């Protein structure tokens, strides 16, 4: 990533941070300043989804086209980073839940769904360690990540809504339609864009690192 682009990203995210706390209005039904978390929590969750989709696409291309090991490494990197973002999203979500409803965790459908997604992709990493043969590992993990391409949208977008609709007595989740205020929406979108760019940058770095590691190993062999 060019230095200029990198520093622009810095500026962008700095602006988002400032805007999140000083420019965007507070959401009506939220306790005190807690709605500010929204501007970080939601983009993190979004980016984890983007990460998992990236891994899925890379894996699909691996399977469908040349079995290029670089694609396999790219997928693994994306999933690692995706898990980190998902974890951050979960933690920020729990903090928010604590502020709002005085309970860190109550298996609210959204919390449960993100946990399922994390377990799914953690299993990917487990799979990676369990298979020793390089070719088989890449192939099977790619198959799994491609399965994720179909299943993850379900985890992120269908499952939360479903649980909610069938258990109306669950903790009332006000996160449904929060972005009514245009200013809030602006910051939210800007934050999401910034985090997405951040992901792609980190992903690129991680993949290049993995490639370099691989070259080192090949050199030794």
């Amino acid at each position, binding site marked *: 990533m060019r230095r200029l682009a990198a520093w622009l990203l810095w500026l962008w995210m700095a602006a988002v941070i400032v805007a999140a*706390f000083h420019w965007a209005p507070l959401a009506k039904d939220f306790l005190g300043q807690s709605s500010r978390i929204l501007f970080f929590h939601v983009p993190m969750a979004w980016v984890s989804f983007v990460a998992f989709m990236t891994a899925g696409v890379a894996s699909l291309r691996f399977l469908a086209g040349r079995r290029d090991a670089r694609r396999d490494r790219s997928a693994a990197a994306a999933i690692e980073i995706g898990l980190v973002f998902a974890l951050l999203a979960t933690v920020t979500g729990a903090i928010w839940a604590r502020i709002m409803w005085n309970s860190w965790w109550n298996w609210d459908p959204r919390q449960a769904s993100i946990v399922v997604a994390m377990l799914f992709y953690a299993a990917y990493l487990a799979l990676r360690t369990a298979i020793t043969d390089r070719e088989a590992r890449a192939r099977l993990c790619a198959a799994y990540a491609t399965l994720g391409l179909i299943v993850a949208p379900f985890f992120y977008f269908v499952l939360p809504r479903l649980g909610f609709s069938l258990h109306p007595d669950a903790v009332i989740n006000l996160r449904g339609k929060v972005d009514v205020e245009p200013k809030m929406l602006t910051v939210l979108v800007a934050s999401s864009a910034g985090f997405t760019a951040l992901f792609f940058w980190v992903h690129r770095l991680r993949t290049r690192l993995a490639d370099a590691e691989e*070259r080192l190993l090949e050199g030794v062999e």
Partner: protein
Amino acid sequence: MGGPTWVTAVNLVIWTGIFLYLLRLERRVNDLERDR
């Protein structure tokens, strides 16, 4: 303690720290690639 201002400052520091770390990482990876 000015609430929002303080939090903003902390976040900015954290973000800048992460950013600089990534820049350094980028430089190292560039070097690694150039050596090969």
